[in-house]
């Protein structure tokens, strides 16, 4: 589903590569944490998967596309199959919750009828149906991030990339977001999330890819942020199983 083969990326003017011959394979339906300190290369990896950046050497394959060979005109089509969430939410302040989510469909020319069913569905999924007419400024940070997640999911992507989605949120709100992301993953969407929130990683017990100075120094299934025995780790909070994620409908 996502594969990096000896991917090397050096930014202009940088002494050392941001990613140095990194290989990684992510299967359909996986939930993967990319962990590491700031500047370790987590975000670069996400940007490569999103084709925001291109590798200098090696290959990046996402959803069957070799991103090195993807022509500029195909990039837009490719990105429609991905959803992205950021630390700073990136909502449009002058549009309501509903309009923010609908915007993602309008700009890719989805028909009105589709928008009118998909947007309420996804707002229901993230639990914001009641606040569809609010402006982002009238929402809490957690709610704003849920709008951003709704926008990322509304076109039913196969992959959700999240760059520090809880970085601006308090622990309780972060948990809510993680519960939501887990639910989305359980419904079949592959989730790749960069974070340095130790508590979250330890609690979720998912695959952890640790990056340091551009190298993968650890890749472990169902692991914690640091290598400590996982037996004693608490299990993630219950997620309501009765809400089906629209992406599989």
């Amino acid at each position, binding site marked *: 589903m996502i594969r990096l083969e000896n991917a090397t990326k050096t930014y202009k003017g940088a002494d050392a590569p941001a990613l140095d011959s990194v290989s990684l394979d992510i299967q359909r339906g996986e939930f993967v944490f990319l962990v590491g300190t700031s500047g370790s290369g987590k975000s670069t990896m996400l940007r490569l998967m999103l084709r925001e950046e291109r590798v200098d050497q090696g290959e990046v394959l996402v959803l069957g596309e070799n991103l090195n060979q993807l022509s500029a*005109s195909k990039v*837009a089509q490719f990105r*429609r199959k991905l959803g992205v969430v950021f630390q700073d939410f990136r909502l*449009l302040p002058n549009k309501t919750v509903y309009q923010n989510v609908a915007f*993602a469909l309008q*700009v890719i*020319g989805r028909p009105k009828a589709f928008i009118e069913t998909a947007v309420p569905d996804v707002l229901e999924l993230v639990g914001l149906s009641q606040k569809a007419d609010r402006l982002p400024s009238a929402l809490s940070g957690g709610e704003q991030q849920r709008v951003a997640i709704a926008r990322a999911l509304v*076109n039913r992507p196969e992959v959700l990339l999240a760059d520090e989605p809880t970085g601006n949120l308090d622990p309780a709100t972060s948990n809510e977001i993680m519960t939501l992301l887990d639910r989305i993953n359980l419904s079949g969407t592959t989730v790749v999330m960069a974070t340095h929130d130790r508590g979250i990683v330890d609690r979720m017990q998912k695959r952890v890819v640790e990056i340091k100075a551009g190298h993968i120094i650890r890749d472990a299934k169902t692991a914690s942020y640091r290598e400590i025995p996982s037996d004693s780790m608490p299990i993630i909070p219950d997620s309501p199983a009765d809400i089906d994620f629209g992406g599989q409908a």
Partner: protein
Amino acid sequence: MKLGFILSEMWAGIRSNISMIVSIILVSFVSLTFVAVTLLLQLQVGEMKTYWYDRAQVAIYLCSDYSPEEACPAGGATDAQKAAIEEQLAGETLTPYVDTYYFENQDAAYEKFVEQFADSQAAQYITADQLNEAFWVNLKDPTQSELILESFSGLDGVEEIKDQRSYLDEIFNFLNAGSLLAAGVASVMLLSATLLIATTIRLSAHSRRREISIMRLVGASRFSIQLPFVLEGLLAAVLGALLATSVTVAITHYFVTGYLAKQLAFTSFFTVADSLMITPYLLGIGATLAIISSSVSIHRYLKA
């Protein structure tokens, strides 16, 4: 992307950028008005050329007693010389080219002179015998005055051959210079309009960079991201072109047709129909510049 959505995006851009949009409208209005003036002056020159060139005559001035020595060493033209010239004009060689001709004696020339220079003091000092007798020739094709020149220059009794078109050319050169001047101003103004559009669109893109980044992330095509911005520049330039057209038509109607044409009844001027005819050109120039400059500008912005 759906049309309604694109238009609403464009409208949002215009609202957030209204003073710049107004300046684009004004600059394209002024520059395209100069374009219109250039085109209409050219049209005027063309129209006057067809009108006057057809009426332009070639004059064969005969020697008088006052003629300069080098042209007329033998003094005034004799009757025999006049007869020879007339014979040649009516002869087989020139008949196919000559439409009509007539002889003007010194009295007739004096009468015409007095009429033409009624306001000038010159009329008081000139007497009939100082003026040349002349054959006035209307050619079937006024551009073939060379023929007359070749046939008669150097002939005994001929002082000078003058094509009236050479006087007209001076007037047309003057009008052409005016039209060139307008074209110069138009190009400078069009250049500033183009740069202004490019700057405005870049500002507009900058103020909506968040929208643009989201559009790119969710997979909007480059074309659909650019379109609202290009339309924004296009709309402003087209409004400018329409303003320029209205002003041009108004000037033509009230000043040219309503005033000049009445004052100078013998000259034909361009009409409101003519100034309406150039509307497509104004719209075309405005639209092309707007599309090119805003596309280039937004393209570079998206690259950066």
